[in-house]
């Protein structure tokens, strides 16, 4: 009833353990909603794949797919509700990946805080492809993503992890038989461009999420400043006094 005060505290959101989110989705039979998920973020991933609404009011023509993946998309691989549901749900339900299959984190000497070895490997491979000519170590980018997801928590953590799994296993959309991490960097790039120009918001969103994370964590690094011509923030260069002193009283 509108306006009635419950005066009952709603329990704060509990954070889910890695993987619990996906398992719950299968148990709860939300498959149709899985397909209808909308998208992922340009930079962050603040929603969830599985809460997303399918439609936006479109008042102009959709872009014509320009890639092989786009053509496949147009023929309905993901536009088919059942197929899309299965594809995404399967990707979400795939095992997190063990060190034997995905040794990159171990090889890099990294103890992961939020990503699985597989997800780390996908992030690392994406960084390798996306950051052509950028003087950063892809492993450092994958590590930064791992640490950021550990700090920011849900729902962003689960959503980006799902994106990484989708990217790894839906390579059929780019007519590849190998997984994303098995592709050559130039193949990965073309595959990701297919996601970028997809008619499906879900795929564009997944692309934007992954791309945004990778590129942001690359260009915040001082070693990219020679590339961009950024001279750094003023406090780094010179210590200047405040123009006025502020008295807050007692601070404890």
């Amino acid at each position, binding site marked *: *009833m*509108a*306006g009635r*005060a*419950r*005066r009952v*505290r709603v329990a*704060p*959101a*509990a954070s*889910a353990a890695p993987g619990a989110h996906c398992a719950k989705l299968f148990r709860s039979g939300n498959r149709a909603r899985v397909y209808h998920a*909308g*998208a992922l*973020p*340009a*930079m*962050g*991933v603040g*929603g*969830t794949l599985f809460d*997303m609404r399918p439609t*936006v009011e*479109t*008042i*102009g*023509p*959709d*872009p014509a797919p320009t890639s092989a993946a786009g053509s496949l998309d147009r023929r309905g691989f993901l536009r088919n509700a059942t197929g899309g549901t299965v594809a995404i749900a399967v990707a979400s339900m795939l095992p997190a990946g063990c060190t034997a299959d995905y040794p990159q984190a171990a090889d890099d000497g990294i103890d992961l805080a939020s990503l699985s070895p597989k997800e780390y490997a996908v992030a690392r491979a994406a960084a390798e*492809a996306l950051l052509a*000519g*950028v003087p950063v170590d892809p492993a450092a980018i994958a590590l930064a993503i791992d640490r950021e997801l550990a700090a920011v928590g*849900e*729902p*962003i953590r689960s959503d980006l992890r799902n994106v990484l799994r989708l990217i790894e296993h839906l390579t059929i959309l780019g007519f590849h038989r190998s997984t994303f991490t098995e592709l050559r960097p130039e193949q990965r790039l073309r595959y990701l*461009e297919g996601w970028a*120009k997809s008619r499906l*918001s879900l795929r564009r*969103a997944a692309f934007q999420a992954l791309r945004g*994370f990778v590129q*942001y964590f*690359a*260009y*915040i690094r001082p070693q990219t400043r020679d*590339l961009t*011509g*950024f*001279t750094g*923030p*003023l*406090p*780094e260069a010179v210590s*200047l*006094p*405040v123009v006025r002193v*502020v008295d*807050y*009283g*007692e*601070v*404890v």
Partner: protein
Amino acid sequence: MIIQGTNASADVRERADVVIVGTGSGGGTLGAYLAEHGWDVVMVERGGFFRAEDFTQREEDAMADFNGRRGLDTTVDNAVFLNYAQAVGGSTVHYWGDSFRPPPDRLERWRAEHGLDWMTPAELDPHFEAIEAELGIHVTPETLLNENNRLVREGCEKLGIEGAKPPTARVDCLGCGWTQFGCPYNAKTSQLITTIPRVSTGGGRVYSDARVDVLHIEDGRATGVEGELTARDSGEVRARFRIDADVVVLAGGALGTAELLLRNIEDDTVGRRFFINPHYFVWADFGRRIDNVSGIPCAYVVHEYRQVRKDERGRYAGGGYIMLSNHQSPGITAAMLSSVGADHTDRMKRWHQLGSVMSVIDEEHPGRVFLGKDGIRRTEYNVKGVDQLKAVDYLKQASRIFLAAGAEEVWVPDVYGTIIRTERDIDEIGVRSVQPNAQFCAGSHLMGTAPLGTNPADSFAGPTGEAHRVRGLYVADGAALPGSVSVDPSLTIMGVARWIAAGIHERHGRVGG
């Protein structure tokens, strides 16, 4: 007194005349007003307490320290990036300081559509005048225009497009360029250095790192709030707090206020009108290094298109937005450009050559704020219908301005790699560029989720700011605005909050606590 929850070691319970949830434009303004009128004030802020010396102006520090969800929050379809601060001082810690009074036509609309008869320039102007004096708001001086600002102005002047230097909230600004990452010089007159000290040195208590989760309501009257004091770095709960008060004011921003209400009150009016003023970004390569950093990001505003224009048949024919000159740090710029690989790298190599503007779209279609089944606050927002047309019109007009200013290329940063080199190319810009996730879109003017109005079926609070259904509970922040202001809403929020504060003081008559 500032009490940092991150240092708490024991539970806290205290009583005040008024407890204010949130310390930004609304909360800070209202708190200072009441404190200086004899009220015993307690303010609680979810974010941390940062002072000038804490601001490194490194983008990653700012994002992690005082941006909501570490700067990564988006709508559920992830098509819109939501930019808001969580810190003592609220979003004024990272805002640009643009300080516009609400356009008279907007107040007229709110009077007509929401019964807010008091929203007249005559009623509000004394409050705006007081705030402008307190914050030293003045027209941006020429010295704070960097080259990007000047190029935007030059393009407008060549085309006969109306624009102006905005009023700005800063005094003795050094023009370091990165005000959005916190001012390390105490020059930007945010709530952090203006109203908050007036509360904290005037007998009031300001709790940081204090997350309210319970709104206490007894017999239809708000009696206080309760929540957790948390460690700033880990979020670990240090202790609990409870503040009992005669008056409870919600000023946690359109997201924070809506979230608290959704957790505590069943009211269908909460969260369903979520305005953000969608921001799309256009970049222009001038083929030479330009000063796109110094000064302040927005020292020139394009007003020409604020009003919607319609054709003789009443159809949309343009407008419905303003443009702000803009610059962004490399990491954020990189995330805003939708290209990949060598193309993206090549664009980033030209970062020092880039001019930029962003839109403030005066939208017709709001989104909503809600709690997911897992209890996590989420948002939905689609740029749709006529709002898409506004976005497209903005992209075209921004391109024209930059071409007139001498840009070699104008980038619509969509996934299609749209580049404008001549006037003829502008026709290529279409709605495909503003489909969800086709390009970076952001919202930083968050409003309307617990709006004022006379109709309880359509508004959470009455014209005085007091909730229709809960006595002693007020809303005094961006959530309270009934719709988009069509310009940066900060000063409007402050003015409305100050008006509400004066009303609270007058009605409750609490002089001397």
